[in-house]
């Protein structure tokens, strides 16, 4: 065999990616790939895929792609979680080795935060925000597609690490100096830094995009104080992204420099200061936890009002609290490392600021409950998630306060108590919120409801599974069990609680299976949404048919009240019956472009080349990046037109034209 082939095999497939699990994954990935290619070829769908999806700039289609990616990543992250939990239930006969365990907890956390929660949020932003504010698309549709493809190729880069070259193994926080070459010579951490850097560019652009969209693209009459709460949440989240991602980018880039170019920002040798990394990371990291929880807050504010058939209680207080959370979120990051010796004054300050941020958060809880008070509560799947969210999140917030109690945190830091806290808020808050949003807006996105009975089964499995998994972990924390260990001695009394916790994890896994079944079943047999307003909704997206035509609104509505659609319905003036054929005008829409996809691909090539330090490949990819951007900059043919006649026909077919 030529020596460079041997070199390639040794580099790409070192023996730690040739373990049974990895080989199994290889085979599965290959098989799935072959099936997809075969299907696309047989059905002659390649062109359809390219024209309708890969080059699209339509926010509604981008939403669908984000959603598919998020659910796929939820699966991957979930399988990771089950592997971790299985090991912890069997401390004397570990199923996976320590090396593998370390990789799996790293990819679990990284994927769940960056490649599950974030795209899930962007799926709902894309699906709903333009419709809710009465707009034709986001402010920068092409940038939006670029964001998606940078995210997608970033996610791909992290995911292939499992089977090519080896996964990162330093946790989702990637603290140095463990990430340095001395302790971590393989390509794994390069994958981590580069995939997050690439996806991070996309995320930052999404932040810009939705900040501008919510500020500039609202329908006439929708003043700030008439915006739905979900739009407030979108705006605050976008602003948080805008200022939180730069420190992350800096931290990742500096770590990458330490690895690739021999700098010593955070290394053990030459006086590097790992704590600087920790500061930068959490300067991003704490705002990030609010980035992933504010959108669910927004979702719940819509869901609770709709399913209580009542206006949101204390709207202006809700606005004030979202905005104050947004600002305070930047001022609490040190609570992630009280135990790094910053001194009592600093610790006391950040303990107090953390408690301060809990106040507006607590206020929102009361407002949600009082939205239900005096309403008529319909227990749909979306609403069940809301009802589960309130107690779960309250407990999560309360344990957060215990962690903010500085001296107590000295004992609880990095124990399973901490693990239980953040899953309490991330699953009970973020995941439940996103699932609630998914069930709520599914008819709008796909034109049919998800089956309620199956949905409620999935809900109960998730909810019960959650508490069985994480309840015992609080106790494990009190028993002194620390995080990120792949096995433990039996003498500490940790075993039984771990077994219970693992059982809970499998219950949640069953919930996921039921949910996927629910989605697949409903694609075929789901109840069609013919009215466009299946839940008797309150905001503008429900004024449109489901699924929504490409141009969204045949005529941009004029908003006069807070719950615009509810208000119109009360006054009997729906969009449908007020459209006259002669009002139809030609609509200008953004045109498809291959640039975003190619740009993502080029970034992927750069990332892959850099991971293995194959600079020729990097140069090749970089040329692709520059070419895409230059081409895009000189491409003035950005728009297409949908003629008035087409719109007339479409709307008439939907039964939405007068006469």
């Amino acid at each position: 065999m030529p020596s460079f082939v041997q070199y390639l095999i040794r580099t790409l497939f070192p023996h730690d990616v040739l373990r049974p699990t990895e080989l199994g994954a290889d085979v599965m990935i290959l098989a799935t790939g072959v099936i997809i290619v075969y299907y696309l070829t047989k059905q002659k769908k390649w062109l359809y895929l390219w024209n309708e999806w890969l080059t699209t700039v339509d926010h509604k289609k981008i939403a669908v792609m984000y959603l598919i990616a998020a659910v796929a990543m939820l699966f991957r992250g979930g399988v990771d979680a089950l592997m971790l939990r299985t090991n912890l239930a069997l401390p004397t006969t570990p199923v996976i080795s320590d090396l593998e365990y370390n990789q799996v907890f790293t990819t679990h956390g990284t994927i769940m935060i960056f490649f599950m929660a974030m795209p899930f949020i962007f799926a709902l932003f894309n699906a709903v925000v333009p419709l809710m504010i009465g707009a034709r698309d986001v402010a920068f549709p092409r940038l939006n597609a670029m964001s998606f493809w940078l995210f997608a190729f970033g996610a791909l880069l992290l995911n292939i690490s499992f089977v090519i070259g080896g996964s990162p193994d330093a946790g989702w926080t990637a603290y140095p100096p463990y990430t340095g070459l001395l302790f971590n010579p393989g390509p794994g951490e390069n994958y981590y830094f580069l995939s997050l850097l690439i996806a991070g560019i996309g995320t930052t652009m999404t932040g810009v995009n939705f900040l501008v969209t919510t500020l500039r693209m609202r329908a006439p009459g929708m003043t700030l104080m008439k915006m739905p709460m979900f739009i407030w949440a979108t705006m605050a989240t976008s602003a948080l992204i805008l200022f939180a991602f730069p420190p992350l980018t800096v931290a990742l880039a500096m770590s990458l420099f330490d690895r690739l170019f021999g700098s010593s920002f955070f290394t053990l040798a030459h006086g590097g200061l790992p704590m600087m990394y920790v500061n930068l990371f959490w300067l991003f990291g704490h705002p990030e936890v609010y980035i992933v929880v504010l959108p669910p807050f927004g979702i719940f504010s819509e869901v609770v009002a709709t399913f209580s058939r009542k206006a949101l209680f204390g709207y202006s207080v809700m606005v004030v609290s979202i905005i104050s959370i947004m600002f305070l979120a930047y001022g609490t990051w040190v609570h992630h490392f009280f135990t790094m010796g910053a001194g009592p004054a600093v610790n006391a300050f950040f303990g107090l600021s953390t408690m301060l941020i809990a106040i507006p958060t607590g206020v929102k809880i009361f407002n949600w409950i009082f939205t239900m008070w005096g309403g008529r509560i319909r227990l749909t799947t979306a609403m069940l998630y809301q009802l589960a969210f309130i107690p779960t999140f309250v407990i999560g917030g309360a344990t957060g306060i215990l962690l903010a109690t500085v001296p107590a945190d000295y004992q609880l830091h990095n124990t399973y108590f901490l693990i239980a806290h953040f899953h309490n808020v991330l699953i009970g808050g973020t995941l439940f919120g996103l699932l609630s949003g998914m069930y709520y807006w599914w008819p709008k996105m796909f034109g049919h409801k998800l089956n309620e009975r199956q949905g409620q089964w999935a809900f109960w499995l998730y909810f019960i599974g959650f508490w069985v998994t994480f309840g015992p972990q609080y106790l494990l924390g009190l028993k002194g069990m620390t995080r990120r260990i792949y096995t433990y001695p039996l003498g500490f009394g940790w075993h039984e609680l771990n077994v219970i916790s693992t059982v809970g994890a499998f219950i949640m896994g069953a919930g996921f299976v039921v949910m996927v079944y629910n989605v697949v079943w409903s694609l075929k047999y789901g109840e069609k949404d013919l009215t466009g307003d299946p839940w008797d909704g309150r905001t503008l997206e429900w004024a449109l048919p489901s699924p929504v035509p490409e141009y969204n609104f045949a005529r941009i509505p004029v908003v006069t009240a807070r719950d615009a659609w509810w208000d119109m319905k009360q006054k009997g003036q729906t969009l449908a019956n007020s459209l006259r054929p002669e009002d139809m005008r030609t609509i200008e829409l953004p045109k498809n472009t291959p640039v975003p996809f190619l740009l993502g691909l080029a970034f992927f090539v750069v990332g892959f080349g850099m991971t293995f330090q194959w600079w020729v490949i990097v140069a090749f990819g970089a040329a692709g990046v520059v070419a895409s951007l230059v081409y895009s900059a000189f491409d003035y043919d950005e728009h297409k037109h949908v003629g008035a006649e087409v719109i007339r026909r479409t709307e008439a077919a939907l039964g939405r034209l007068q006469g």
Partner: protein
Amino acid sequence: MMPKRRRGWPYRYVVPLAMVVGLLVSGCGQQYVLLHPAGPVAQSELHLLIVASLAMLVVIVPVFVLLAITVIRFRDKPGNKAPYWPNWHGNKKLEIIWWIIPVVLLTVIAVPTVGQTFALSKLPKAKDPVIIDVTSLTWKWLFQYPGQHVATVNYAVIPAGEPVLFELTADSPMNTFWVPQLGGMEYTMPNEVLPLWLEAYKPGVYWGHSGNFSGEGFEKMFFNVKSVTPEAFQQWVKKVHQTAKPMTMTNYHNLLAFNTVGVQTYSNYPSDTFPAEANGFTLNGEGMYMIMHDQHGITYMPMSDMSNH
């Protein structure tokens, strides 16, 4: 020598706390190490944990009850007699009340939190506290006693009933030094030295562990801290000097290998195996302090005194 018990806020809560602690203790085994403090630091940390938990319960319970009542009363079912106010969207009085509730509860937690944060950062006044320089190595712990000139690996011996100052650093990825029954953890970080003081009320053996992932063998970084009477401590030091060999630079380099080892004991050690200079924060007295190890042993210098030297 008896430590001066710091009389402070925790003692005002003793009665109610004793009841709660009693309840918790009777229900739970000794394995709940966080609920069974064996020293003053762990004790005050537990006190705070309990105060904060109680304050949180004050809000959790009513919220749960309110939620349950709301959902039961306002279900959308035929014949529900409960009122329906579709346009009720605010009430100044109510809203003010629930801004006040969290503010009050958090104040209850915040005041002792700040107090204890400052209190625990100061080493209680003690004559010649034993100082232990702790270095985390890749998957082992090195303890060096600059005052006694002994060194141990993967176990430490401390005198009971008096505060002990641990100075923490790392010649490895970051770890945290944690002995749950004696008190909370603190990071060991390369190129920095952080102070942590702990004290054991009584002789006993308390297990410790690293709380921060540092690679393959990290889960084996358990160690024991043996607390013995001050006299027994002196005898132990004497015995080590008589029986153990001094640590050589070769020994130290062997410890740097990425592996796990059993316990080891050395009389004396090369002085440049611990940072000679380090910045830390308030322990002995006020403000920042700086330690210097040189041929005279260690000098212990509060930053405020620096100008005088």
